[in-house]
């Protein structure tokens, strides 16, 4: 029984941290720019495909692929923000959703044109590919790695936003655009930078997903984006602390749900979301409107 509980916990932790990696960029972009970016799942997908493709050119070194793949996606993110999204900031939310959703369809088709419609089996990472026995049962090393990376990203983002000059500027610009620009902050450029950074986070999630889900498919971003949205809503839209906690709860809940109450595992997440929203409509760490 103990080994079962431990393994269910580990599975839940790795699921949760994985969702967090994707949700962090989504939350950051919403928190600063106020844009609900549906295309974030596409950046995740592009991150995975670019990482996979670069692996072929870089002598199958996963770490080089992970370094350069997401950087390529940043270029895509830059174009999307600078030449499209920037023109709908002042419009109602549905316009942003429509535009970003259009990009989802566009990127899905683009991936099919370039990489084909089939699924691509992904390579394993040397050094992280095996599994180690924990209480008589194997657990993949790569999942332990993900469990470790999640909190590191969280601490890194906290330090960036709370401890650096850049972070202070971002916080200033997101709470009052006009005042920030009046005192000389180049708000449009700053927003582009934040969007590109958010894109990079999503693409990193995709790159890390290559060995994690073990498979690349067109449309792979659509499944994860739902989880990321749920996490962002539970945590409070725009709150990184909330998204981290939300991802942890969702991961563990789904793992325990699947193991012990399999009939309802699909609903558990949404029951939790409904409960949180009834109790705190703004989410766990959201600010009341």
């Amino acid at each position: 029984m103990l080994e079962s509980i431990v393994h269910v916990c580990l599975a839940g932790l790795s699921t949760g941290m994985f969702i967090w990696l994707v949700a962090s960029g989504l939350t950051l972009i919403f928190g600063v720019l106020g844009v609900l970016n549906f295309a974030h799942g596409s950046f995740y997908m592009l991150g995975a495909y670019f990482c996979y493709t670069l692996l072929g050119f870089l002598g199958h070194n996963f770490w080089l692929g992970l370094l350069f793949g997401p950087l390529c996606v940043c270029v895509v993110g830059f174009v999307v923000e600078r030449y499209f999204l920037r023109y709908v900031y002042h419009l109602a939310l549905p316009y942003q959703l429509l535009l970003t959703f259009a990009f989802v369809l566009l990127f899905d088709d683009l991936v099919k044109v370039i990489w084909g419609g089939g699924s691509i089996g992904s390579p394993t990472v040397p050094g992280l590919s095996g599994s180690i026995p924990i209480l008589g049962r194997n657990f993949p090393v790569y999942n332990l790695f993900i469990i470790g990376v999640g909190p590191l990203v969280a601490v890194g983002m906290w330090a960036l936003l709370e401890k650096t000059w850049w972070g202070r500027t971002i916080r200033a610009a997101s709470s009052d655009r006009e005042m920030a620009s009046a005192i000389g902050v180049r708000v449009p450029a700053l927003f582009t930078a934040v969007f590109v950074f958010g894109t990079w986070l999503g693409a990193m999630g995709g790159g890390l997903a290559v060995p994690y889900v073990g498979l690349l498919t067109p449309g792979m971003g659509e499944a994860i984006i739902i989880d990321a949205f749920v996490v962002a809503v539970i945590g409070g839209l725009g709150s990184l602390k909330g998204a981290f906690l939300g991802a942890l709860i969702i991961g563990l809940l789904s793992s325990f749900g699947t193991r012990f109450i399999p009939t309802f595992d699909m609903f558990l997440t949404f029951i939790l979301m409904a409960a949180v929203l009834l109790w705190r409509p703004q989410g766990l760490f959201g600010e009341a409107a």
Partner: protein
Amino acid sequence: MGNKGITRRDFMKAGVFTAGAIALGPGVLKPIGAWAATPAIKGPIKVGYQAVMSGTLAGYGEFHKMGAVMAMEEINAAGGIAGAKLEIEFRDSTLKAPEAIKNARYFVDSWGADFLGGIDSSGQALALAPVMKELDRILMVTHAATEKLTEDQVFKNGIKQVFRICTPTYQDGNAAAFIAKDLSAKTWATVSPKYEYGYTCWEMFKNTLGKLKPDAQFTAESWAPFGTTDFRSHINTIMDASPDGFYSTEWAGELITFVKQAKQAGMFDKIKHVLLPVGAAMDVLEGLGNEMPDNIWISGRYFFQYPDTPMNNDWVARFHKRWNHYPAYVSETGYSTMYAFKKAVEAAGSKDTAKVISALEGMTLASPAGDRVFRKEDHQAMYEVPWGLTKSDPKYPFKVMGKQVVIPAKECFNRPPFEGPGTKPPF
């Protein structure tokens, strides 16, 4: 206006002349060739084909297309169907029932389709059956497997417009049970898709194995919703139960992910007997490559190494040359569908729905998968598919079937309550 362009009068003259020529054509120009005697068939023969072309299973649409397009090219190069050209239009079914119905209506009402083909999900197939009756066009199902389509809709409800060329859930549930009865495993568990297909197959597997081997026990089941990418908690359920045998109808990308994660968790070291009824799909074998463990029982709706006949071997070679792929099972069913239509239309001497239905009923079709017989009562094609144990082969960059076992279709295909010539295939 001068000489620059044709005048309105010239245009009218040309139009009248063309129309006259078309009207007189069949009478003036004497039909020649083998099909001179069948003026009832006016070409082209149009087939509306729908498959999933977006989302995570988009690859299946491509596989369907490869087979269907290849058949169209061959048929047209060899003179068409009864002398008429074959045309296919493809549409994305998106795996959703309303979309499938919309596509079918578009094909028939707007595009003028004579026949329909495709369909990946059982839900779509069941939703389409009554629509096919209303549209009065034949639908050849090439992938969806639910036995309710043929048993309930065709046999009980009398919707004669629906046929199925691929193996149904009998192959995934019953045939698997025939394989399992000879294994030493007593306790069985499953991780399967959390929808109709997964439930039906596991139920069928349990019932049939329970009859064939009364001491078999079924100790754990875990259901993975569509789109699952993280199977670790499901794998935990199985590891907790530690059964002797494991059965899973996970398929496509989800099966690839599942096998990788189960391997990491050491599941295949602990459970020796593993049955994957859809494991011999090309996307799964190519996707897993060397990561597919050895000695796993796999099967599919068709596997390119079976049967070892000149027809199949030639076809696989031609297919590989044309697409640089080994044929997936939906490529074979898509390909053979076009030949089934060809044979039936030529036998009926017409593309009229009722006449082609009678031609298809009980018809034997020689196909790459071997001889198929369309059972008259329920329109289910009876043919055989091998089960085999995975092994490496230096000729292929993926695992293939080692030991091959064939469970005769007449044994493992359900026998709905009817008798007749169609139920006794010439195997």
